[in-house]
């Protein structure tokens, strides 16, 4: 059992999840106006996963993320204000507006990047973990990937490699039931992605991704195991995405009312607030204060992103190499 979370940690957990939710819902609204360029994949509904896992990590632990990366970024400590500007394609963005939603990265905080290539992160995170191991440090690497990505050769190769080299890696399969329009019932040949763990010589754990505390606990064990040098774990987090695959997706492949029902009965923020207030660990006033503070912060980030300048033309040719 991981040690119970103190008040400060509970506030932090709720605040992180709330930032992710509000960030995504605001991007959803602004995307619909046509002002946000490119492809945007929202993480709303999945907040407990990124938050419950990243709360165990420090700045020197790396995460590799996916095309649906905003939540991972926020949970790992990337500044949401810079992220918002990045999504709007502004010079003040996390990556100077050069990458956009699908490529937000901040190596300073151990965020190795969202990724436009499904399954791209698995091998990379083996590398960050290897570097830590070679230097005799005890930092870990976490690779987030989807149910769709779980079928990619890179992920299989990375899991085997991590086991063979006994790397401090946690493979986090975020199973939201769909890869674009294709159901994981079809694309994954076994009942659970975690069932594949034994084929790669590592423990496989299934956890309810609507339950922050369940994720936090399972991740704590896997990360402890990795830090102590016992090798990788495959953690399958079962959850759901509240919006379409990308903004603009009509989602006719989904059952009617599917998301509405989850929002009403299982939502991670709702469950969290209910639990901590009914136990008297936090008050409704605590929750409402965070809600208000986060809303103001997100609103301000959009005002700023809109007003910020586009990258200057000279930026086109910079940053291709360190030296050339």
């Amino acid at each position, binding site marked *: 059992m991981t040690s119970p979370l103190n008040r400060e940690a509970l506030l932090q957990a709720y605040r992180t999840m709330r930032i992710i939710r509000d960030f995504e819902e605001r991007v959803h609204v602004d995307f619909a106006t046509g002002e946000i360029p490119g*492809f945007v994949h929202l993480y709303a509904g999945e907040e407990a996963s990124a938050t419950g896992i990243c709360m165990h990590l420090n700045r020197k632990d790396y995460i590799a993320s996916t095309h649906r990366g905003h939540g991972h970024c926020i949970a790992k400590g990337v500044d949401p204000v810079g992220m918002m500007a990045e999504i709007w394609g502004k010079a003040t963005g996390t990556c100077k*507006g050069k990458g956009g939603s699908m490529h937000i990265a901040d190596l300073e905080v151990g965020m190795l990047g969202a990724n436009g290539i499904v399954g791209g992160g698995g091998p990379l995170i083996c590398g960050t973990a290897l570097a830590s191991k070679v230097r005799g440090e005890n930092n870990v690497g976490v690779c987030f990937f989807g149910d*769709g990505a779980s*079928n990619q050769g890179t992920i299989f190769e990375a899991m085997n490699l991590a086991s063979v080299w006994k790397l401090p890696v946690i493979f986090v399969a975020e199973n939201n039931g769909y890869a674009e329009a*294709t159901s*994981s019932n079809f694309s994954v040949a076994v009942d659970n992605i975690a069932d594949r763990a034994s084929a790669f010589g590592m423990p496989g754990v299934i956890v309810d991704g609507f339950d922050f505390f369940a994720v936090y606990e399972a991740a704590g064990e896997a990360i402890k195991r990795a830090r102590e040098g016992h090798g990788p774990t495959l953690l399958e987090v079962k959850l759901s995405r509240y919006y379409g695959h990308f903004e603009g997706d009509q989602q*006719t*492949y989904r059952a009617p009312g599917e998301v509405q029902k989850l929002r009403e009965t299982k939502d991670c923020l709702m469950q969290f607030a209910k639990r901590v207030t009914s136990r008297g660990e936090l008050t409704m006033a605590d929750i409402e204060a965070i809600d208000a503070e986060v809303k103001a912060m997100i609103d301000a980030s959009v005002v700023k992103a809109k007003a910020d300048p586009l990258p*200057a033309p000279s930026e086109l040719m910079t940053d291709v190499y360190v030296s050339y």
Partner: protein
Amino acid sequence: MARKITYQQAINEALDQEMTRDPSVIVMGEDVAGGAGSPGEDDAWGGVLGVTKGLYAKHPGRVMDTPISESGYIGAAVGAACNGLRPVAELMFIDFMGVCFDQIFNQAAKFRYMFGGKAKTPVVIRAMYGAGFRAAAQHSQCLYNMFTHVPGLKVVVPSNPYDAKGLLIQSIRDNDPVIFLEHKALYTMEGDVPAESYIVPFGEAAVVQEGDDVTIVAIGRMVNYAKDAAASLRKKGVSCEIIDPRTTSPLDTDTILESVERTGRLVVVDESNPRCSMASDISGFIAQEAFGALKAPIQMVTAPHVPVPFAASLEDLYIPSPARIEEAVMKVKEYR
């Protein structure tokens, strides 16, 4: 009978007609039906941008969603082609070739030669390419030059709906592996397309417009930009001949050569990065074969040697524009 349809509809129609004509034609890819195993519609997507929409219902069992396993299903398409099928496998964005390139360039491309002429691999790999969608560095590349480099592959880059249909039908009937590349910005382009089935042969460039002063060779979407530039140049008294190679492998060098020998001036327009590109390939060929005819140094209008940027202000600068083509034409026209 021709009627106006879009580039996207032309591709859909070519697939539909070939599937009807030949039961060995199958279509596979991620979400080409879109909805496998899900509780709602089975063919919810018909491809990410709806290009294969409707085929699933019309050709039961022959339009297959795949897991996200490009090495797996692209390789399986290659294998199925060796064993008598004519698979059309969709790679979605050409950038994803990175995941499965071995199955394409070490396997499919090499069989015919390595096996002493005994193998036949009639596979088509369709994918969209090109910038302009704010899709950033991993979803916007051109990459036709990389396939063109590989002996054994044929590479098709249609610039309009008519060619898209005829070239895709030829691709499916062709007995070699074909990389068929669709510029995302062209999907909504309308043009006259015959309702009946027809082919556009490989290795035959289209002379899009005849002219005397300067030859412009342009690829894919850039053909349309070259037309814009040429229309503006005509008002300034400059007459451009525009050549659309339509396939970069095989490449119709005769038509390009004949034109440059007449005009003495060449501008090559290519949306890819410039190094080892179609622009440098065609320029090199003309420098070697038509040196004596050239009245000015060849000009290449390409993207710069950088990845595709996300921000609008940068991506608009990245993509060659009609204005840059016009500038290049004036430069060769006014040389000396």
